């Protein structure tokens, strides 16, 4: 298992669990997008937003209430 990237398991397992078929080209693209996005996604998830009061039914055409 040495050198195995997290995506090696996550992507095929995730696609299979959803019943999504993917050929080699699909997997290459998915891997590239995953490498680009995954670290920032983990950083986003780790962002401390506790205490932030969410907008209720936000109107994006206006400033927040």
């Amino acid at each position: 298992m040495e050198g195995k990237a997290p995506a090696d398991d996550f992507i095929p397992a995730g696609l299979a669990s959803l019943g999504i078929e993917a050929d080699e080209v699909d997997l290459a693209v998915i891997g590239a997008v995953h490498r680009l996005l995954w670290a920032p996604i983990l950083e986003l998830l780790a962002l401390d937003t506790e205490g932030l009061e969410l907008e209720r039914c936000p109107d994006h055409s206006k400033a927040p209430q």
Partner: protein
Amino acid sequence: VNGGLDLGLGAQAAAIAAGDVDPGELLDATLARIEERNPALNAVVEAFPERAREMLTAAPEGPLHGVPVVIKDEWPLPWRAQRFGAAELMAPTSPGESGPYRALRDAGAVVVGVGNMHELGAGSTGSVSVYGPARNPWDTERCPGGSSSGPAASVAGRLVAGAVGADGLGSVRFPAAYCGLTGLKPTFGRSAMEGHHMAAITTLIVSGPLCADAADCRLLGSVLFGEELDAGDPAGLRIGIVRDPVSKDVTPEVDEACNAAIETLRAETGGEVREISLPGLEAATLAAILIINSESMSGVTPERLNRLDPELSAVARGTLKYRMLLPAAATAQATRVRTMMRRRLASLFDEVDVIAWPTVPAPAPPLEMPMVELPSGTLSADQANVRGAALANLTGIPSISMPVGLSGEGLPIALQLQAAWGRDELLLDAAEALERANGRRWVESLPPLAEASPTEA
């Protein structure tokens, strides 16, 4: 000359209204121009000579009476469903009267053709499309910008004087920047969106005008908004600049041209430049990407993804499948970041009137290899460009891109201004002030392809 073909949008409308230009002759000249220049640009993927003549015959007296325009392949027309630059969409489509079409028709405009676009709206370069890429009139080997590639190339190549694009993550501003145009991303919800296949779902996408200058954007914007975008005086403009990667990770030429333009704008308006802090920009960019990915997958099933059209690009096929794997928690967190950034901006707009930074960090890259060299290294243009654009879509604020220079290679450089919700008019006022101050040098610059033409004989 040429039935008014080389006039701006407002000048065409005024010349027709004054009887100085015959709209039938203008339409014929426009169609001839498309025939002549489009093979080099692939900007217009379908022209409608007969439909256009019918529209002209029925055109009401309005602010754009008899003026030819191009509309992006993102909205249905009564005689044509949108294709979104792709072999297939993830949502059903059919011909119909979209909001932008209706607004144009009711203003008396004549839709002469559909503009090319980046496949599924998912790219800032315009380098991928089911029709083949549109090409940049400044250098046809360069990206025109996306996703509203065809509308921008149509205007920059002077096929028409105005075009309607759409902006979900910068898709009006990027092609405006690459093609040396002025492009307005309106406040969310302010411009016509009916008939868009994501109209009921999106919280980011807006229609917007692409024109040579701010006055023309004001005119076409007023039509799309369904209300007059009145001109005002931006005297004392407070310009906020952000010293972070969005502003600093740009090529030296872009940095220099944008800084000079900001100083020119400050001097022209008698305003001031304030350095401001806007933490969270990177998180905001990712949040916008996650939200638009999530919204675009509404109604898409795994089974549907197993039946994708083989003509879709490999990138589109893989990306669509990857979107199904994105964690729901990340999208929920993106919503929290959205709230956070909206509040930060609301607070900032008490201190400044506009926030300025380069629209794109480098001029248009080659179509063959859409990568850009930045101080931080070599990045895909998409990755680099989205950093400066996503905030406006995430938060709903308006934004404008305007030309402020040419690179050593003769490619346009652009500055972006962003303002508080509903202050679209202020952005247009500021852009006009900058045009005045620099003698309209950049908005009147023409790409080589548009400088001489057999139709000018």
